[in-house]
């Protein structure tokens, strides 16, 4: 299963990120994972939250542009070589990673991957023993 990630377009100026977190905070939305890419003029915040639907409406109402994307989330064990062994399967199946970021759950560490054709890639990887977390799984970890 894949999970849903919210991406938010932010102008590169003081206070915009805070405006976004304030909107989420007011709606009691918990951010589980977050990554920011920045360019000269703008940034994109990508995040996993506990209530994607609500978060999207809250952010749109606050005037942010958002986009929902399917991402794959895998647990990475806290030992040498574990990320490498996951990436090895990506390589074997010729899956190109657009971007990735990590977050810590209650009991372990996880990597979020954005790939082209997420559903197809997820099915391939599942057959090869990698189980991506669903939105429901995210509530547990």
């Amino acid at each position, binding site marked *: 299963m894949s999970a849903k990630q919210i991406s938010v377009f932010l102008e590169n100026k003081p206070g915009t990120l805070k405006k976004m977190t304030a909107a989420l905070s007011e709606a009691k939305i918990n951010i589980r994972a977050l990554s920011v890419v920045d360019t000269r003029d703008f940034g*994109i915040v990508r995040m996993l939250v506990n209530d994607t639907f609500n978060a999207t409406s809250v952010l749109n109402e606050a005037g942010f*542009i958002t986009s929902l994307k399917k991402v794959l989330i895998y647990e990475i064990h806290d030992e040498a070589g574990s990320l490498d062994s996951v990436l090895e399967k990506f390589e074997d199946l010729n899956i190109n990673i*657009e971007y990735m970021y990590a977050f810590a759950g209650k009991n372990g560490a996880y990597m979020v991957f954005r790939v082209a054709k997420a559903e197809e890639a997820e099915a391939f990887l599942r057959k090869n023993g990698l189980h991506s977390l669903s939105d429901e799984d995210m509530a547990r970890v």
Partner: protein
Amino acid sequence: MAYYQEEIECASLETIKGIQEEKFLKQVRHVWDNVPYYRKKMEEKGVSVDDIKSMADISKLPFLSKADLKAAYPYGLLGVPLSECVRIHSTSGTTGKRVIAFYTKEDIDLWDTCCARAIVAAGGTKDDVVHVAYGYGLFTGGAGLDGGSHKLGCLTVPVSSGNTERQILFMMDLKATILACTPSYAAYLAESLSEMGYGPDDIPLKAGIFGAEAWSEEMRRDIEAKLGIKAYDIYGLTELSGPGVSFECSAQGGMHINEDHFYAEIIDPDTGEVLPEGEYGELVFTALDKKAFPLLRYRTRDICRLTREKCSCGRTFIRMAKPKGRSDDMLIIRGVNVFPSQIETVLMKEGYAANYQIIVDRVKNTDTLDVHVELMPEMFTDSVSDIDERRRALETGIHNILGIKAKVTLVAPKTIQRSEGKAVRVIDRRKI
């Protein structure tokens, strides 16, 4: 085809020329006798009123420019005693000192007539409800369309600008069929309409009469689609009365000049030489029968061209092309003439709304051109390279049309200030 005054709007060229010449000769005499400022300019040029014997002799007369209006401020160009005047209007003063224009009762009446013709040309009749969202007050927009609407006998809603939500509710409740405002405010109304959850079918509007600022053909199509109307351009200057000097008809192919009241010439802006019909140059107007503020050969700073080609609407009045922009709006960036409307055309073609700002600065003696435009929500894909490609596409488009490079920045929606009157599109930070 409906006209407000068919006999004059569709008159033969010979008739129009006859009217023009008769009025012109009287007007030169009026100015010579009553406006010492202009008489002095004529004398300096070695021209006397007796040298002006036909319309062709207009080329002997000196031009008036905005500088003359400043020099003669406030009463120097007045053609009648103040006691004959019933009203003043004033420019927004965006390009320096305000200009004050005076009107007699008859001047107001002919202005109202010009605007009534424009409303009829946009499909209006006395049964229409005209929602006038131009500013009222010193600005001529509100007064002009209000006057034209009254004259035609429409129900006039003098809502003026501001409080956009109330405007939309008014349009729905009073079943407005014609909207009159600046094009940038029409675009803002359209945006607000959709934010309130309504679409073009929820408002009874059928036509819009938009003027007082330069706007592109793409912006017209956008407003037409979003409000479900046909959008007509209207042109005018406070110096010449206000909106209604020229107006668009159903053909939407240039604006018919009210030639029985205004005589138009196109000149080479550098030499002052009159150019033949069809060539681009600076538009110059002579007010043929306005008494209080009788400007002769007033240089508008608007760059456009004229055509007398037959119009499908049946009107014979000469048409002027949509000005590329007032030469005041024209920026000279790295030696290149740039009109904001050219940049707007690129943005609209690429699917953006007309929410943009042009920032010009000078860094290390080189002009910089920055264009900020709001990213449309549907364009956002989470990918940095997609946004970068969009940005580059705009930079390439602007480079292709202007021949100079611009730096484009995509900004978040609603971050560029909306305007209820004339939009502030250009910020020039150069200290020259």
